[in-house]
């Protein structure tokens, strides 16, 4: 999937002028990337769905605030990222409350057994590029541009993510 920002820009103009339905085209264009970002940050399909939906809805409600020089793709990603951060903080809070009483048992439950759980265990800065790598047809350049990092930085993170994931899975297998 390639981001076509020029097209996005035209659609936004179209949207602002007359057509609500134009936003539907923006959704179809950008939802997948937004979902991948949420999935990468949250490590959970269900949460990613909720937050990606919230982000698209928020984009819809606030599109008037989008500066004409700003690209819709970058803007909606920023919204999604902020929502994810907020969500993580809320989730963390809940976990911490629970951890007060059952710190030990919670510690062990975090280490899990299937691939999804192993991905979830990756630190967010590695999980995000790894997830997007698989959503973006294994193209490190696209990931670099979407995450606004260098190409070598993206490669490094994918490399680290893969190595750490292997360690986690190996640790699991040994159990």
């Amino acid at each position, binding site marked *: 999937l390639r981001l076509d920002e020029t097209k996005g820009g035209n659609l936004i103009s179209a949207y602002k002028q007359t057509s*609500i339905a134009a936003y539907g085209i923006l959704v179809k264009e950008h939802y997948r990337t937004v979902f991948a970002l949420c999935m990468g940050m949250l490590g959970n399909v269900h949460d990613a769905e909720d937050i990606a939906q919230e982000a698209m809805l928020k984009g819809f409600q606030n599109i*008037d605030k989008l500066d004409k020089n700003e690209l819709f793709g970058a803007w909606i990603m920023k919204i999604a990222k902020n929502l994810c951060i907020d969500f993580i903080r809320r989730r963390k*809070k809940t976990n911490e409350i629970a951890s007060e009483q059952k710190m030990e048992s919670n510690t062990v439950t975090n280490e899990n057994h299937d*691939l999804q759980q192993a991905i979830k265990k990756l630190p967010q800065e590695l999980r995000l590029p*790894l997830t997007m790598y698989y959503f973006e047809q294994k193209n490190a350049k696209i990931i670099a541009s979407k995450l606004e990092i260098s190409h070598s930085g993206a490669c490094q993170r994918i490399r680290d993510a893969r190595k750490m994931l292997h360690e986690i899975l190996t640790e699991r297998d040994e159990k």
Partner: protein
Amino acid sequence: MNSECQKYKEIIADYISGILPDSEVKILQQHLNECKDCSEYASALEKEDKQLSSLFAAIDSDMKTREQKVLESINFPEQKEKSSRTIFQPFIKLAAAAAIVIVVLFGLNKFGNSSIAWADVVEKFQSVEFFSAVFYEKDDALAQPEQIELWMGQGGNVRMRMGPQVIFGQSGNLTKAFDISKRSQAEPDPRAKRMLEMLAGMGGQFSLDTLLKTVSGGKLTNVTPLVNSDAIISEDLVVFDSKLNDIQWMRIWALRESKLPVHLRIWGSRDGYCLEAFITYSNKQPAEFFDPNAFEQVFRQQQDNNKSNIAYAFLTDPGGEDITPKDMFNKSGYHIPIIKQAGITKEGAIWILAGQSRNRMPNGNEFYGFSQMTDNLDRTYIDVGGAWRLGDDTSLNIFLPIDFPFDNRRPSKITLFCEVKEYNPNIKPELVGTIDLTQWDVNAPCPALFGGFTSVLSWKISLAYKFFADEYSEKLSRLVETIPAWREQPDNKNLLQLWIRLSYREKDYAQVINIGQVFVPLLLKNPRESSRYAIEEYLLSLAITGKIDEAAKLFKQIDEIDVLSPRKSEKEPYEQFKRLMVEFMAEKAELELEQLSKIVGFNINQKEEYRNAVERAKNAVVNRKLREAAEKRRQEIADYYKNHPLPEKMELIERSDKKKIYFMNIPNTVPDHEDYKIQSIKKKVKFFVSDLINFNNIQPYDLVPMRVEDVNEEQELNADLIYKEGTSRLEKTEFALNHFGIELVIEDGPSRKVLVAKYNGQSLKDFKDVTAPIPYDGQNQLKAGVMSTGTSRGFTLVEIFDDLARQQNKGIEKDGDKLVIFNETGISFEDGSVSSETAFWPDKEGLELAKKWFNEEFGVTFTEETRPMKTYVIKKRTE
């Protein structure tokens, strides 16, 4: 694997990812052909790559469905297109019709001698200060009509309501549009926009000519309706007809004396298309009515969820009638119900019969009678039930002393509380007032005014349910002893249901099944009055005890009956019932997917909406196995300590099979020595360190300078740590590292500026009274001080502080000038919740606002200091 291999290992990941330069690929491939270890490592990564590809492809396969959900949530799918098809085009007709209202007034009427001249109508219309019109339009004979409301005032003011939108305009320009259902400003409905543009031609005052020209788009200016004398039945009305085209005609009713049109209809003879407009005139509305900013203020008030209050904000009725619940409340306010009769039964229950029992809230909700009571004996009373009768606005409340029926004391005074019932637990109920009573009927049975609920047993059952919380378990046991066994009254459905829940609570599943077999026929005898959820514990007990066939039979039995609540014909609530039952069985009975599918009669694995249940089922099976292993290990450790002394603080016991133990839903304590806990360890040295960071044992947050010296981070510890309760994570880590001859040294690093929070000891408010500085209004959610989260249980100061520190300390490792925030308030989790909300505290503005808020609400002040930062060093123990 040698050091050469280590180098290759670094690039194997890149090779698998397809990002290794071609020049290096060949060299690596050659090495892989020669080296078994690296080849195995590459195969393993390749296998994982395939697994990942397959996992993400599976997730990706649902992307279209997700997109569709987003589109639906944004609410612009096909309906929008449909509505523009049905309403936009007819609106031109509608507007034309409105124009024609004026044209037709030229006609003469057989009942009167006077004619209505166009000039009179124009003049009259110009003199009107305000008019409103309600349009109803349907596409064909069987379609549901759509309603549009329009208000116009002199000076070019327009307000419209179209579906969930309220739209404001001024002199033809759209100023603001709001969506009531989404509680946000909205892109206006294109039809409304067009309508406003058309009305712009009026300029600053009403003009029929402009209206006519505008709304018809110039098409109907030459239409001249004629008086239809056959349609006139009285002198005060003039009726005009006009043929619009071959298939549509229009009729207008106008008042003869005032010369004002009041009703028009356009009719499509071919398909039953119909547009009706009712036009009314009144004195002008208050200025706020046409002011979008004033409307926005009402709109942002989160506590008012009543759509009528919002849709018709500031609209006044010229006849003084109420338009909204808020209008009703403004006139009536709250009142205390009037006691008609009160009594105390011989068992000690107090009942109150009250008139004028209903109170209406500004948001349209209602509450009845009294919410609680106290007496001169300082007893707590439980409201075990009540009822109200709308006919004569009478309520009945029944209160039992908490120790009913064991507390036989009789009060000489009781106090009844009338409180505003809010559904939001975060909001403290507002007291309307209290009534003291000193006289009542003694040993008086509760009046059976509401068809039942007068028996002592029914009250006890109700009271028992209130005691299901753990803190009341003693009271529950004592009360239950006074309640008949279920076999004594096998026809009493309420009694059977209580015993089912009691037995399930005690995990006596065999008993639940026994009662369930008697209960279900009763439930089905009159299903119209029963809830489907009543079978929950029975079904779960069958599932837990492995009676899958019986559970399937029960589920089928319930599934076949429509009228149980929720009704099968109510698709969404019924589907929710099924999903919940499956999820409960997955989690509580730990059933496998095949078993769950068998019970509900379809393959849940193939249904998207059951994915939560499927996930739970998979986890439940894994969890069960883990739990069994943990229970076994606990017993082994207990046996070990039968022959060994317990350690003073902690001890490592190695596991023979090196398999880690997971304490899930079972205590991680040493049996018979509950103050000792077990932590199962299977961890490399490097993960010990990362755990410390994760659990914030090394403060502050992101600023954790760490150094590893002469230590192999890959060493792994496989053992169970037995430690005395109260041992800190840092102590445990140091002890475990010591096993490898490693020590954790904390050194003073470079100094930097910090912000230290201290507490002045002032008493803390009830957390429900503390909220974020700025309420969330759907618009400014990321601004400093705006509420970010709210819960009914509230937040401790530790949580709120942690929130602030996380936001403010962000990036401290890179920015040496940034102040590091330390919590030295001494207020802990145990001090309980201090606020019902948390807030956003970004940047400097957030910090300043937070300082003020923390000081005002909690007496926490911040002082700037310079302190040395700690550096954490992992190295070989020197001794």
